[in-house]
Every structure is written in C-alpha cells, then in structure tokens.
C-alpha cells in the first residue's frame, strides 16, 4: 500500500512499464509529501473490504461492505513498523464525515468520495455495488479520500476527522454532538441566493462557470471512454474466433497445420489481453471521476459565497430601508409605503409620544442593523480570503494530478501497443512457418 515517503522529491515516473498500483501510489506519494502535521505522525491505509450483514434502521436484514482503516505511526528510523491500529467503517460513515466537513468548512473545497453507484460503465463492467472489482476500486477511492483530507492544511487538524480514524464506537455520537446539522444551510436558502445576488465577486462567478464547464467536459469524456472501451473490447474478443477457426482448420491441413495452430494460440492471447488493458484504463477513469466530483465541491464553495454575499446585501438593504423610514418619520414625508404610515393617514396623525417611541425603536433597529452589516461584511471578507487561499491550493493540486493522470494514460497506451506488437509479431512468425 502507500509506503511512507522518506524523500522530499516529487515522485517521478521513470519507466514506461508502470502498473496501475504504481501510478496510484505516485499521486498518493505526492499528497503524502505535502507534509501536514497529521501525516508526519501517521500513516493511513484502507487495507481491506469485507461483507457484513446486519439489521438496518428499519430492522431489515441488509448486506453491506465495511472497510478496514489502518493507522500506523509514521516512524522512519530503522525499527520494524509497529502493528497498526485498525477499525472498520462503512461507506455511510464516510458520507457522514464528509457532510460534517462540508458544513464546518464551507470555504474549503472538500475532497469527494468515490461514487456511490457505478456510473459511466461500459457494458462488460458490472454496475453491481457488491461486485468485487467495484468494491476494490471503491476501497482505493476511500483511501484516496482520507489521504486528501489528511494532507489538507486546514482539514487535517479537525478533531472529528482524527476521531474518525481512531474511535470506532463513539465517533457517530461525537459528530452529532457538534450540532453541525443545525449549521447546514437550507437548500432553499442557497437556491434563492443564486438568483438574487446583485454584486457577486467576479472571481467566484468565473470559478463557478469554469467548474460547470469542467463538469461538462469530464462527463463527456467519461461517456466517450465507456463507448470506446465497449468497441475495443469487441475488436479484441472477435479475434478469439480466429483462434478457434485456426485450430479447427489446422486439423485438416498437413503442411499448414502447425503454423495455423500456433498462430491460433496467439490470437487467443490477443483476445484475452483486452481484459487487463481495460482494467488499467478504469483507473484513469477513476482519476477523472475524482475531479468530476470535485467540481461539485467547488460549486458548493461558490454557492456559499453567494449565500453570504446575499445575506450581506440583504442586511445592507434592510439597513437602508430602516434609515429611509427614520428619515421619513422625522420629516413627515412618506416615500416608502408602510402600514403605520397608511393607518396614520387614514385614522389621523399619531401623537408626538407615539412618534418619539417609534423613532427610538427605529434608531435601535438601525444600530443593530449596522452591527449586522459590519459582521456580515467581515464574514464575507474572511470567507473570500480563506476560500481563495484554498482555491489556489486546489488549482495547483488539480493541474499536477491531471497532468500525472494524462502521463499515466500515455504510459498505458504505450504498454498496450507493445503487447500488440508482441502478439502480432509472434503470429507473423507462425504464419511464415506455414
């Protein structure tokens, strides 16, 4: 699994025959070497997956998968690695952790979880959640998630995250005790914010647009990939028929028999090779998917900004209104419709005492309003600053990771071509001997 990296250098791929585990490790190594305090202390693995059955919340039997998290102290001096502390977590607990992080750090782009259900599948690949290949890929994705959080300058310090890694039993209660659910913005609130913000920060608008377009483009790529994989599978597998026919044909030929028979074997090899090739390519798809899901996290941050901005604008607007009201009350002109104003018109002027008390109330309200605006302003500025910090960090990470992913893809293609050359050269040999 992910070995502790002692060198500070960026892991560089120096050969072209890289396996998928290797290339996965390269990205993990890249994360690990961004030394957060947490990672300097601990080594984190998601080592295994296991099926369990139990009763769910509605007291029905269900089958689910649990994942084993291993924590080891990251000692690098000489001694044998200590036995790891372990605990089991299921996917829904990871989801709970992530939701907690989303709410608690709305200005951070929270790393995504691997997909809940298999999507963008090409038809030979199972879409079944209990399929061992899917479970395995999910295990890798969950480990990836933990390492991303552990290597984040802000998130890695979170206590609940630490408990997630260390406290199997009491964790759920601890999370709920934080009361994070109350802090969650209602969906309605954030939706309405989107349409009514008057002065959104231009950078966030641009970022949201970029994120949406990136989402589009990656989705498109994943769809194409699934179709291409399907077709390529077909091409390779049909060659398997050659194997069969050559074999049968060789039985009736005297001179050509041996050549045909051995060529047939190579055709079988060729047909079988596509399984591994597409398995490796699945890994590339997973890397793209991570960033596809990241776009959702980016959008969340943008929306939170809009919400805060909206609240600031509302507070400012509210304050302006009140000031207006005060002015009118003081000068007697009515420009803004108010029920009080109407009733006074209809039922006669109010007494000077009533007017005094109303003015005082308004004054109070205005003062409170000004406090609110100041708070909101600060909140907004803080948010923008913190968010933008994280966005810059994210951009760097994204550029690096995706570049690595493209390089891995090229290496995969090269490996595939080499296999093809090998098989067909062998086949040609056999034909020549016919």
């Amino acid at each position, binding site marked *: 699994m992910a070995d502790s990296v002692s060198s500070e250098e*960026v892991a560089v791929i120096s*050969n072209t025959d890289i396996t998928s585990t290797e290339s996965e490790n390269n990205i993990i190594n890249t994360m690990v070497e961004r030394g957060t305090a947490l990672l300097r202390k601990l080594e984190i693995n998601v080592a295994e997956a296991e099926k369990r059955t139990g009763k769910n919340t509605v007291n029905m039997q269900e089958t689910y998968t649990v994942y084993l998290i291993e924590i080891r102290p990251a000692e690098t001096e000489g001694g044998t690695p200590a036995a790891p502390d372990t605990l089991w977590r299921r996917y829904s607990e990871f989801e709970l952790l992530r939701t907690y992080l989303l709410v608690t750090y709305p200005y951070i782009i929270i790393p995504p979880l691997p997909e809940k259900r298999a999507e963008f599948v090409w038809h030979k690949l199972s879409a079944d959640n209990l399929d061992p290949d899917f479970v395995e890929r999910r295990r890798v994705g969950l480990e990836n998630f933990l390492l991303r959080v552990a290597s984040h300058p802000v998130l890695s310090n979170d206590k609940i995250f630490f408990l997630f890694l260390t406290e199997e039993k009491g964790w759920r209660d601890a999370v709920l005790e934080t009361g994070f659910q109350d802090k969650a913005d209602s969906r309605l609130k954030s939706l309405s914010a989107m349409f009514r913000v008057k002065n959104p920060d231009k950078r966030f608008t641009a970022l949201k647009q970029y994120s949406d377009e990136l989402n589009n483009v*990656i989705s498109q790529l994943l769809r194409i990939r699934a179709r291409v994989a399907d*077709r390529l599978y077909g091409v390779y597998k049909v060659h398997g028929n050659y194997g069969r026919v050559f074999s049968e044909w060789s039985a009736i030929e005297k001179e*050509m028999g041996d050549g045909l028979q051995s060529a047939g074997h190579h055709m079988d090899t060729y047909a079988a090779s596509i399984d591994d090739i597409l398995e490796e390519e699945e890994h590339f798809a997973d890397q793209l998917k991570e960033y596809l899901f990241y776009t959702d996290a980016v959008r969340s941050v943008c929306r939170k900004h809009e919400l805060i901005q909206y609240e600031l604008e509302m507070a400012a607007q509210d304050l302006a209104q009140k000031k207006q009201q005060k002015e009118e009350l003081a000068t007697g002109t009515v420009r803004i419709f108010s029920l009080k104003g109407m009733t006074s018109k209809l039922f006669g002027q109010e007494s000077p005492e009533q007017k005094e008390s109303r003015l005082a109330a308004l004054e109070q309200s205005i003062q409170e309003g000004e406090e609110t605006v100041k708070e909101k302003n600060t909140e907004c500025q803080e948010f923008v600053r913190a968010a933008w910090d994280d966005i810059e960090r994210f951009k760097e990470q994204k550029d690096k990771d995706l570049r690595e992913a493209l390089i891995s*893809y*090229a290496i995969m293609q090269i490996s595939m071509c080499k296999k093809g050359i090998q098989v067909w050269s062998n*086949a040609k040999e056999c*034909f*020549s001997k016919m």
Partner: protein
Amino acid sequence: MSGHTVPADFSEHMLDLDEDEDLEVFTKNTSLPDGSPMPNSPSSMVNQYRLEDDDEGQEVANTKDIFVTVDHPESQVTAIETFILYRVVTRTTRSDFDSSEYEVRRRYQDFVWLRSKLEEKHPTLIVHPLPEKFVMKGMVERFNDDFIETRRRALHRFLNKISEHPILSYSQHFQVFLTAQDLAPHRKQGPGFLSRMGETVRAVANSVRGLKSRPEEFAVMQEYVDDFSNKMCCMDKVTQRIVKEQREYVDELKQYSPTYARWGELEEELTEPLKGMASCVVQCSKEAEEHIQHLSEVLVPALHEYVLCAETLKAVMRRRDNIQAEFEAKNEALLTRKAEQEALQEEVDVLADRMEQANNSLKGDWLRWQRSMKTDLRSAFISAAEKNVEYYEKCLAVWESFLVSQRADSSGGQEDVA
C-alpha cells in the same frame, strides 16, 4: 513445374510487400527469354506482382512468357443497359500468338463465358473462381467505385491464375479471349444451350443413382473440401466482423479529440497536454483507418476468394463423381444386358478412358492448387499481421512522443523511455 521446392531466401522476397523491393525482384528474375524489355507500365507491373504471390507464380515468372493485366474500367451506356468494360492487356512471346501485344475490352459476361468454356473442356481441373455477380448485402449501387475496383482486382487475379496454369493457359478459348477484338462471334460457337442441358440431365440422373464407391483418395479429398469450405466461410465471416468492429471503434475514438480540445481551452496550465492528447487521438484514428483499409483490400478479398474456391472444388468433385457414375452405369449395362455387347463395350471403353483422364487431371491439379492456396493465404495472413504490427508501432510512436514532451516540461524528470 509443380514439383519444385522454393529456396528459402526466395520466400523472404516474395512475401515482402514493399513496393520497391517487389519491382526489384521482378526485374531481376523475370527478364524475357529473347531479351525484350519487360512490360513497363508501372501500374501493370505493380498490379501483377502484388497479386502473384505464389511460389508457383515465381517459378513460372522465371520462365513466364505471358503477362496479362486488367485495368481501366469504363462505363458503357447503351439503349438497353449499362455495363462496365475492362481493358485487358496481354504481352507475350508465345509462338502460337500472332502478335506480342494485345489490347481488348471485355465485360464481366465475357469472363463468365471464358470460365464456363474452360470448365467444359476440363471438367476436373480446378479453374479459379470469378468474383460474384453481385454482392448481396450492403450494396447500394451496383457500380460504385469500391465495387468496381474490387471486381477489377479479382478479374485481374482470375486471368493471372489462368495464365499460370500449365494446362489452362494453353486453352484456345483463353487465347481468343485475350486477342479477339470482338468476342461475340466466338461466343456463339461450340456446344449450345440444349446440349448443355442434356449433359446436366444426365448428370442429375447419374447422381441420383449414386456412386458405387469413391476411390479412397477422392473420398479423402471430398472430406477435405467440405471441411475447408466450412473453415473458409468462418474465416471470411470473422474477418468481416473484425472490420466492422474496428470501424465502429474508430468512429467512437474520434469523439475524444474535440472533447480534449474543448477542455484544453478551458484550462491554463493544462492546455498544452490536453491539446497534445487531442492530437494523439487524431493521429491514432488515422492509423486505425489505414489499418482497416488494408484489411479490406488484402485479407478480406483473399479469404473471400478462397470461399469461392471451395465452391469450385465442390463442383469439381461433383463432376468427377458424375463421370465415374456414367462409366459405372454403362459398365453395369454391359454386364447385365446380353444384346449389343460390342457396341456397349466400345462405349464403356470410352467412358473408362474418360474417367481415368478425369481422375488423373484432378490428382495432378490438386497438388498444384493446394500449394497455390497455401502460398496465397500465408501471404495474406503475413501481410495482415505485419500491418497490425505497423499499426501498433505507429501508435506507440505517437504516445511516446507525447510522453517525452510532457516529461520534458515537468521538473526534475530523468526520462528513461524503454
């Protein structure tokens, strides 16, 4: 001629489909006995050589004294019909030809006539098949360019196979076909429609009676022919399916590049590698399309030709069986009937002779055919395998150069491109 073994280094040359080398070997080994210059139209030389990939052909080419090409298809429109005329060019040193060069125009029907005449005269020789009259599925227009070109190549191959055949190439009909400006008068001669009908009826009657027993070697041959026909059909089907799957693959693959390009425009740091990806996909698609083209032009026709050959073989076996059946029927009549003994004996002798001749012809031609089949198919398979290797090599180069360009950009990398 059919007993020679081919020296090993010869086969290396023969099977190399690199154009220049082909031409080189051609001129080296096949100068005409009287020293006169070779057929010098490049297209005809290339056409001939590419399709003459059997060792028999190479042997014959050493002493080959007749060269035939089929080219220049031209559409002919008359009041009644539209058809294609092909130009048939012959160059020869044979003394039984009046001239050394001929140029005639022939249509598909003329080829059909020639072939039926050859089969008539030599019922148990293996006469190479013609391309089919029409292709059933996937045909939109009878005269689209691909169809015409495929047919032209097959017709060229047909005439070359005939010209290399030790017996058929000396056929009178073959000579007439190659030389007569107007074939029509010749087509009217010879056993007419009715007499051919009579033969067919007799043949059917005989086959109904059934053979007493097939000689061992022909029984083995029959079994082989049936199996071979089976296998060729399978090979044909599998290959056509592969072409189809590859076409679909390339269509999907092409979708990648506009998407990568679009993504590249979205990014800043990643623009360059993404555009690189788009370009790689474009190049690989091109290579794949070339590969498909090659398959369609080399392997598919070769296999299809041998599907047709298998049918020819079946027909030859049937005709041989009929000849034997006729003899046996007459022989039985001789043994059972007491009257007309002398006349019957004569007829039986004739039929016995005929049967012996037919069997010997077939036996002789069988070996020649088998060798020719092996050479043709081996060459087609090798060519297909080579093209596959080439395809993967080219794609490898594309991705390797992408990789090099990416690593050159990233910091601190030592490249070790294996």
